[in-house]
């Protein structure tokens, strides 16, 4: 196909603009924003329309974007194109969505052929696809080529991006993704369904839920069987209840019959009772005169009679008691009359009390006087004893005001002196030891370094000489090694030369011999040659030998020089160091210097120690001399205190003993003072006690006199002067006691007698009252005696009994009849008529049986009810089976749908993969071959091979290495990558050409990164394509235009 012309009536910036495209390469040149993209878009829209897809009349955004700027109402245009077979067509469009119109005219015949083309659902015509053989997407993505920069693709993996684009073109025409992307989407779909067994996915979940439902169904089914069993059981219970009710009804009927029999019996009994009642009534009438006699009055009357009898008996007893008392009183009166009834006074208690107290006090005083005298004597004895002790002790009062403190200070000061001496001596000993140690430590070093105070300078010089020596030695050694190497080399060569030379000479001789002696022709030359060669080798060997000899001399010289290198030749100071090293058995001057440093350090320390030692010696000596002086002085002092000091170690102990002795002295003095004060106190007490004793004796005498006087005056006793006052008082008291006892008894009897008389009077009154009471009780009944009362009472009893009997019979009759009256019972019995056979058992037994049946019925009913409740609860606790079945059906359906979906997806994936593999396998080699050729042309042979794998992975043969490189962009320039991309795109378009109409290519400035040379080459290539494809190149660059002009391209300037 070739686009001849376009007429843009109204399209973007263009209005009524017509452009004719030349055949071949057409360059449309214009700066940016001049409409190049608009023209390209117009061409595509004219061929394919502005719909999103074939099935919907939905416009792309370009429909709005490309509206005419000037708004002249015309939104559309026409395009004339020519097919490869020469037919020309014109398509006229109106893009306005409200006035959309498409017309196709055959330019050859001038006829409208719009109806010849299939119209899609989006109202587009199929002419573009039919004539070009490409869908809109494929056309847009293959026919339009822009430049590709690495910036767009990314700095790295540029060829991967190109590959992706190629894959997109190959797989979907470039409008959509690649097969790989599609496979990924579908794989995600499979994963989302859960075909792979993922437990969290819908399919697995559906299976899981289904299994759970099946388990629930089985469980419910089992429960149903149980329910059915329970239902049967309940039905059986209901049946049993029914039978129980029937039985109960039968029992109740029997009970009714028995009750009727009972009525008969009751009637008979009731009639008999009535007769008895009548008899009791007759008795009541006979004793009616005694009906008002209350039997309870009998008790009262009898009680009154008993009370009267009791009162009389009581009176008799009391009179008897009185008689007895009178007799006793007469007896006591006689006893009382024999004693003179003189009233004696009681002895005054005051005198007796004072007398006894005074006597007791006097006894206590005497005892205390004796004790006090003993204490006085004891105190005197103690005072004598203490005085003797003091005489035996030293007189500490003359030693010091405070002997204890004085003695302690002495002992302490001596201890301090001793301690100071010991410390000084100890320090001295330590210093001596340190000095000895340091001297011993430095002995060897001193021997080594003594006399060599300049050792540091010697060491420095020695080190310097040593370095010089080492350098020389190294140099000589290197020379020697080199010479030896050369010698060895020469030797090796020489070894080879001689045999070769010998052999050649031998050959010469042989050939010579053969020529001269055997007249063999043609030996001159070999002889000459062999001889010459032999001579040469021999000469070489000789030369080598001479050289070797010289080398040997030089080697000797070098050895000699090496051996002569000495560190210390002719330098006495260095010899010193060497001697030191030898003596010290050290290996290096560094070690020697270290030893010297240590020696110096020790010497310094030793010096310090010695100075300290001298000072310490003086201190120690002084401390030692002070001790004996102190000791002598203390001895004198302690002697005064009565202590002897054995030695310097005894000073502390002597001080302690002296202090103890002083304390003892002090205690004794204190005791003496105490005893004297005690003596004084006791003597004072003794005097006082004696005075009190005299006073007490006087008081006793007075009281005794007073007591004797009193007793004599009372006349109850005779006073004996020989008796003591106390004895007299005791006798007086006894006599008084006896007198009081007699009087007491008499008074008591008289009192009792008076009481009895009063009691007799009361009892007489009581008796009279009881008699009157009895009479009063009997009078209402018309009797005046107890006997009359008894007779009346008997009648009353008879009456009462009859009444009671009648009442009892009446109650029994009532009880027997119950709520019935006798007449009613008679009527009922008559109504019942003849009764049938009497049921067995008693009414009670029947009632009990009925109760038992009721209980059983209640139990069965309760059981049935409980079973009913259980049935209801159990059936309510499970879901209906139909619901479970419904849920299972839903799940089955879902599983089927998911599995079908998964299978459809998997099948689609397998087919897509298969198709893609075939497509890629077909496309890749062709594309690679075509692209390689184009690339070679573009790059002028620099890059001539592109390889495409089955997955369209791109490899390029690198000229430097001639290897096909997988990631060539790493070593390729941006421009080269662009060219590879261009080559591949052009090759792709060529591949489409093979099977269809030639495709017009719309190139949008694809040469951005091309240099001049490549631009020219590419332009030549592009112009070479025009034989098959129309090429319309849009550019804003003058160099591209120039290159195009060089290729005789037609230029349209916007």
């Amino acid at each position: 196909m070739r686009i001849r012309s376009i007429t843009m009536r109204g399209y973007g910036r263009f209005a009524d603009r017509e452009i004719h495209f030349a055949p071949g390469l057409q360059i449309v040149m214009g700066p940016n924003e001049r409409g190049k993209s608009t023209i390209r878009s117009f061409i595509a829209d004219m061929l394919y329309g502005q719909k999103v897809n074939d099935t919907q009349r939905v416009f792309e955004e370009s429909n709005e974007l490309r509206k005419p700027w000037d708004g002249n109402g015309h939104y559309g245009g026409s395009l004339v194109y020519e097919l490869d077979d020469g037919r020309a067509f014109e398509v006229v469009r109106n893009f306005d969505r409200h006035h959309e119109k498409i017309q196709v005219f055959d330019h050859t015949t001038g006829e409208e052929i719009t109806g010849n083309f299939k119209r899609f659902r989006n109202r587009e015509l199929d002419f573009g696809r039919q004539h070009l053989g490409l869908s809109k997407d494929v056309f847009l993505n293959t026919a339009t080529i822009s430049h590709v920069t690495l910036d767009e693709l990314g700095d790295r993996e540029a060829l991967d991006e190109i590959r992706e684009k190629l894959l997109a073109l190959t797989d979907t025409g470039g409008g959509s993704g690649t097969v790989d992307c599609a496979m990924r989407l579908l794989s995600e779909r499979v994963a989302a369904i859960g075909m792979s067994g993922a437990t969290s996915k819908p399919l697995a979940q559906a299976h899981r839920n289904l299994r759970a439902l099946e388990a629930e169904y089985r469980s419910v089914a089992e429960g149903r069987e149980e329910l059915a069993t329970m239902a049967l059981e309940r039905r059986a219970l209901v049946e049993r209840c029914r039978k129980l009710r029937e039985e109960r009804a039968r029992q109740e009927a029997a009970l009714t019959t028995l009750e009727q029999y009972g009525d008969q019996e009751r009637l008979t009994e009731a009639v008999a009772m009535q007769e008895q009642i009548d008899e009791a009534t007759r008795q009541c009438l006979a004793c009616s005169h005694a009906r008002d006699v209350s039997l309870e009055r009998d008790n009262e009357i009898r009680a009154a009679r008993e009370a009267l009898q009791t009162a009389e008996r009581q009176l008799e007893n009391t009179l008897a008691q009185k008689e007895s008392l009178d007799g006793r009183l007469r007896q006591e009166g006689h006893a009382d009359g024999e004693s003179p009834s003189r009233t004696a006074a009681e002895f005054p208690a005051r005198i007796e009390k004072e007398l006894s107290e005074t006597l007791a006090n006097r006894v206590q005083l005497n005892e205390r006087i004796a004790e006090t005298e003993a204490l006085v004597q004891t105190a005197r004895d103690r005072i004598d004893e203490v005085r003797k002790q003091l005489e035996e002790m030293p007189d500490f009062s003359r030693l010091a005001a405070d002997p204890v403190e004085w003695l302690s200070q002495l002992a302490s000061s001596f201890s301090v002196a001793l301690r100071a001496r010991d410390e000084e001596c100890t320090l001295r000993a330590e210093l001596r030891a340190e000095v000895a140690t340091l001297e011993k430590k430095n002995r060897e070093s001193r021997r080594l370094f003594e006399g060599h105070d300049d050792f540091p300078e010697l060491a420095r010089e020695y080190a310097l000489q040593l370095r010089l020596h080492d350098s020389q030695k190294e140099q000589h050694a290197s020379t020697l090694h080199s010479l030896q190497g050369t010698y060895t080399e020469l030797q090796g060569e020489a070894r080879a030369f001689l045999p070769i030379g010998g052999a050649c000479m031998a050959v010469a001789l042989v050939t010579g011999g053969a020529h001269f002696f055997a007249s063999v022709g043609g030996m001159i030359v070999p002889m000459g040659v062999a001889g010459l060669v032999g001579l040469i080798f021999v000469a070489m060997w000789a030369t080598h030998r001479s050289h070797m000899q010289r080398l040997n001399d030089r080697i000797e010289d070098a050895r000699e020089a090496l051996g002569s290198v000495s560190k210390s030749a002719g330098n006495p100071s260095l010899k010193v160091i060497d001697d030191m090293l030898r003596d010290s058995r050290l290996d290096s001057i560094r070690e020697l210097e270290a030893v010297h440093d240590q020696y110096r350090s020790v010497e310094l320390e030793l010096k310090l120690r010695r100075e300290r030692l001298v000072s310490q010696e003086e201190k120690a000596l002084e401390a030692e001399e002070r001790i004996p002086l102190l000791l002598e002085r203390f001895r004198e002092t302690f002697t005064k205190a009565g202590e002897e000091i054995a030695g310097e170690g005894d000073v502390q102990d002597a001080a302690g003993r002296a202090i103890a002795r002083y304390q003892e002295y002090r205690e004794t003095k204190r005791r003496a003072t105490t005893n004297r004060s005690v003596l004084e106190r006791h003597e004072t007490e003794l005097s006082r006690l004696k005075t009190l004793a005299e006073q007490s004796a006087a008081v006793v005498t007075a009281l005794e006199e007073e007591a004797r006087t009193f007793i004599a005056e009372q006349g109850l006793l005779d006073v004996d002067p020989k008796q003591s006052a106390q004895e007299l008082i005791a006798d007086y008291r006894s006599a008084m006691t006896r007198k009081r006892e007699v009087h007491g008894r008499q008074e008591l009897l008289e009192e009792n007698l008076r009481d009895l008389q009063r009691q007799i009077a009361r009892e007489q009154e009581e008796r009279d009252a009881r008699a009157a009471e009895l009479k009063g009780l009997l009078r209402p009944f018309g009797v005046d005696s107890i006997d009359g009362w008894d007779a009346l009472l008997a009648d009353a009893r008879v009456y009462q009994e009859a009444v009671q009997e009648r009442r009892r019979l009446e109650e029994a009759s009532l009880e027997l009849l119950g709520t019935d009256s006798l007449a009613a019972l008679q009527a009922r019995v008559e109504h019942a008529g003849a009764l049938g056979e009497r049921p067995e058992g008693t009414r009670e037994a029947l009632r009990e049986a009925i109760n038992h049946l009721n209980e059983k019925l209640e139990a069965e009913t309760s059981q049935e009810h409980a079973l009913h409740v259980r049935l209801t609860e159990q059936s309510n606790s499970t879901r209906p089976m139909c619901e479970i079945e419904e849920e299972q059906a839903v799940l089955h359906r879902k599983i089927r749908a998911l599995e079908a979906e998964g299978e459809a997806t998997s099948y689609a994936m397998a087919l897509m993969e298969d198709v893609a593999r075939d497509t890629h396998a077909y496309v890749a080699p062709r594309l690679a071959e075509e692209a390689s050729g184009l690339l070679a042309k573009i790059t002028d042979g620099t890059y001539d091979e592109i390889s495409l794998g089955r997955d369209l992975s791109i490899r390029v043969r690198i000229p430097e290495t001639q290897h096909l490189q997988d990631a060539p962009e790493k070593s390729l320039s941006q421009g080269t990558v662009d060219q590879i991309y261009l080559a591949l795109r052009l090759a792709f378009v060529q591949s489409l050409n093979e099977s269809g109409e030639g495709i017009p290519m719309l190139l949008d400035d694809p040469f951005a990164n091309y240099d001049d040379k490549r631009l020219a080459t590419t332009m030549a290539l592009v112009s070479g394509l025009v034989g098959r494809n129309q090429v319309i190149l849009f550019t804003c660059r003058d160099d591209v235009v120039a290159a195009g002009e060089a290729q005789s391209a037609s230029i349209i300037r916007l």
Partner: protein
Amino acid sequence: MKIIHTADICLDRCYAEQGLPAATGRANRVHLRECLEKILKRAQAWPADAVLITGNLLNGEAVERDTVAFLRNIFEDVAPIPILISPGRHDPYTPTSPYATELWPENVHFFRGPEWERYAVGTLAIYGFGHANRSLPKNPFESLHISEEDSTCIFMGPALAASLVKGEYTTGAVVDPAVLADPRIAYVALGHLARATEIDTGAGPVTWYAGAPEGARFGDTGPHHYLEITIADEGETSQAVDVDPVVTSEGRFYEMTLDCTDLESGQALLDAIRPHLAAQPDRQCARIVLEGALLPAIYDEMSSIREALSEDVLYLDLIDRCFVAENYAALAEQKTSLGAFVARINQEIHDAPDEHRRAALCRSRDLALCGYRGQHLPIRASQGD
């Protein structure tokens, strides 16, 4: 005499075969109860002299206890109107059947076996039989016997009219109009068919299937009935029988297929479906099968469409059998892997041995196209959740 005749109610029916979820099934089962309640209330209000239920009152022995309690209550409520029940193949009178194990009100009578049993309702004798097992040992209609004292009678039971028998039918009762020649037979109440159907018996008695009072599956569109029968004596042994089918439901299930090829948007799809659902409020369970080419844009709206339609009905089964609207022929001509894929799968679709395989291949094609284009297509199994 006024009789109400119904059958095949199948309380506690399971809707697993219809693919209904448990919640919808539950609602439908409640609805069945309401249908029966409605019939019995009418019986009470009319009032009917008897209610005949010819077979399959219950859906098998796996009936819930509260369903039995419900039945007991509503039967008791209409007492003393007798409720005569012929157990059918799905609810035979077995020893473990609720009919046998539960306590029923006095006005409920079961025909317990395949032998004819007489039940008198005033002067009307009702002869009935029932299944004691899923299959009958013999055809009861082969041994009809009417008592001498009966002047008017009704026969009832679950049976298949002879004219409807296809092939060999040995498990149930078959009624042949020729057998029903006795003029004392005023009415034959049958059960077994889903729709109220009169059987042509020629000169024989009026014979009807009451049909189920409510549909049971998506194919059961259209109204459902129960029958009100009025029997008036016209002579000693002749009667005037008037049968009035009364609509209990316009049809709870509804099904339709829609070709989506020309639909431009999701709204258009909604507009195409909604009028059908709105036409009858009874249509609470709807199955809509979408076929043809569906635009990808509509696919994207499918969940919203489903949600919008679900507001109109109790249950919506939206089955997507569409394929993505594409110019597959044009795609097949592309010289790309996509084109080669479409060409190949188009051929496989063309050569598909059956519809199932064809549909699977179409789906594979749609999935691949979306994959190539990097587009998303909803997973089909998620629809209807």
